[in-house]
């Protein structure tokens, strides 16, 4: 079949990413927007754009009926969910199918099977893929949970069965904390996912977060595109990602990739997906979960493999076979992504919505800016703070790091606060440069970071004075009185004299 028009059921940089891929394939793109997003970049860049309601996501970007109605009215024949919002929602995939729309993602059954984290753990166990020690069914009831926890040992994690994105998770370091944490995790899970079921996993100490990109077509081909290392996190949210991982050698890559493909096949997976692993200090790896969608950090895989993942998503959805076999996939050089968020990194990561009064993005050799912002754009207060993803490629990891440092020094956003200053300090950090990464890295080093101060003080004073000097000069307003011998002498303090 041919896909001629795609509705992009998302916003921000990922909607722009999908619109660009559509344009390159000769596919028309349809944007949707909430009332807060009328001036968002994806609306400006799409071929068509339609309003879908108030700013609150559940009245717009999560409103399945509206999205399907707009897609049909606009004559779209497929829907791309992006990431977040409805990307891992089986009911949305089903609603699309019921309306005759191709859902650009896996089949609803695969979304369901993998969306239940304990079910996914059981799939991995059956396939002989190592999993983090823990329970393979949801646990409930204090006594049962206490018993299960003793079997696993402390510290451990309580996790939401239907979870994802860091919500409904609680670390428990000793038995005494268990009951209270259980209640919190269950209620947070119920609130976030409509299902309070939780399970237990041993808490690994400073593990690395390593994930494998897979793509699968409707003809039974499943290929992995190597791994990404996403260990630089804060609050379980990734901040800096890279490919390949500095600790994964070709042998481990093959083993991780093979395990990922096996899980995808067992789940009947189609389209692009990501299998997440934790890797211990001793190199052991454990299946964590599978994300049934495009990841935020997909560009680092694209840069090292040369494979355009969104293009492949569109091709797979149209029924095409993968354009490559496993043997055709190779990794060249190294790529790093930094997430530029509208947040105050030195102020507890507080969101910083507002108008971007000036914007100069980094550019030049091997610098890719996947952005949802533009100069004059007002970042709304209703959504994720991700403004742009800055991606660089280099012939090797040190070259990529130097390039990222250069690119961050060029990137300028005025009007709101962004994570750029802290990203610059991360990529300059000796542990990062040495590849000594773990999910605890950022929490450990953040207290040593601070906004740079007073290195450019004189320059700033000069700029401020010249701005005022020229402003006054242009307006030729009141001149200072001409100095006379008996007038007030400058340099002495005015007012009361002792």
């Amino acid at each position, binding site marked *: 079949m041919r896909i001629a028009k795609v509705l992009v059921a998302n916003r921000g940089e990922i909607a722009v990413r999908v619109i660009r891929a559509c344009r390159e394939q000769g596919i028309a793109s349809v944007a949707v927007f909430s009332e807060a997003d009328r001036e968002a970049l994806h609306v400006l860049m799409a071929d068509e754009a339609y309003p879908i309601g108030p700013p609150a996501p559940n009245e717009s970007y999560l409103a399945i009926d509206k999205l399907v109605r707009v897609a049909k009215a606009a004559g779209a024949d497929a829907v791309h969910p992006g990431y977040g919002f409805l990307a891992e929602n089986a009911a949305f995939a089903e609603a699309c199918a019921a309306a005759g729309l191709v859902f650009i993602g896996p089949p609803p059954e695969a979304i369901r099977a993998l969306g239940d984290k304990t079910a996914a753990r059981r799939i991995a166990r059956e396939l002989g893929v190592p999993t983090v020690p823990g329970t393979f069914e949801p646990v409930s009831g204090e006594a049962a949970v206490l018993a299960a926890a003793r079997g696993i040992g402390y510290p451990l994690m309580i996790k939401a069965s239907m979870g994802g994105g860091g919500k409904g998770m609680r670390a428990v370091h000793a038995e005494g904390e268990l009951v209270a944490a259980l209640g919190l995790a269950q209620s947070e899970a119920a609130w976030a996912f409509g299902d309070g079921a939780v399970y237990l996993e041993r808490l690994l100490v400073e593990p690395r977060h390593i994930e494998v990109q897979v793509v699968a077509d409707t003809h039974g081909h499943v290929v992995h595109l190597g791994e990404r290392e996403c260990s630089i996190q804060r609050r379980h949210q990734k901040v800096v990602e890279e490919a390949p991982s500095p600790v994964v050698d070709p042998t481990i890559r093959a083993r991780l990739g093979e395990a990922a493909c096996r899980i995808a096949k067992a789940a009947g997976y189609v389209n692009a997906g990501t299998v997440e692993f934790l890797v211990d200090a001793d190199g052991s790896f454990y299946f964590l979960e599978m994300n049934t969608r495009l990841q935020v950090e997909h560009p680092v895989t694209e840069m090292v493999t040369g494979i355009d993942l969104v293009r492949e998503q569109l091709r797979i959805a149209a029924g095409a076979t993968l354009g490559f076999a496993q043997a055709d996939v190779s990794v060249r050089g190294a790529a790093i992504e930094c997430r530029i968020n509208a947040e105050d990194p030195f102020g507890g990561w507080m969101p910083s919505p507002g108008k971007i009064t000036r914007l100069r993005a980094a550019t030049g050799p091997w610098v890719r800016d996947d952005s949802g912002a533009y100069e004059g754009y007002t970042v709304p207060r209703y959504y994720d703070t991700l403004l742009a993803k800055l991606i660089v490629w280099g012939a090797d990891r040190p070259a990529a790091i130097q390039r990222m440092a250069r690119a961050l020094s060029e990137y300028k956003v005025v009007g709101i606060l962004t994570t750029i200053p802290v990203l610059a300090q991360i990529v300059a950090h000796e542990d990062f440069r040495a590849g000594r990464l773990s999910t605890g890295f950022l929490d450990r080093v953040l207290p040593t970071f601070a906004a740079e101060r007073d290195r*450019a*003080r004189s320059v700033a004073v000069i700029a401020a004075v010249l*701005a005022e000097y020229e402003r006054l000069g242009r307006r030729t307003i009141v001149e*200072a009185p001409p100095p006379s011998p008996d*007038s007030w002498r*400058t340099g002495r303090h005015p*007012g*009361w004299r002792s």
Partner: protein
Amino acid sequence: MKFAVTVGDTTEMVEVSGEAGRYRLTIGSEVWEVDGRLTAQGIYSLLIGGASYVADVFDEDGACVVDVGAERYVIHVEEQTRYIIRTKGGAGGGQAARTLVAPLPGRIVKVAVKPGDKVEKGATLLVIEAMKMENEFKAGASGTIAEVRVEPGQAVNGGDVLIVIR
């Protein structure tokens, strides 16, 4: 042209001269030769001793905000005379705050006190018209008015003693 420049708690006087992109600034005892150009709205290119800087200058809540590299400065720049007027009488207290001296040439518009009056710190003493503005001068300390050396309509020079408090 002279400016009072405040960064954080520190105020310093900066003198600027020059035009058309070539400036000389004196900050404290240091002299800076600067090639400065406004390349686009609010974006300055500065060459200082050969070193090249780009500074983003913008207003925020009435202050001048300057971004240089990863650093941000909030800077108040005020013509020196205006600064002097605005901060008149506010400098110090105690024994040092007991003589009101004209900070700049002007004309007395109003005298609000007479000898013997008791004044609280912050009470209006007189009004001078200067720089086309009327500027209220307040008592820097509480006390009793000992002398009033001026009257309305009178022209004064900077440095003239106007009022003495005991």
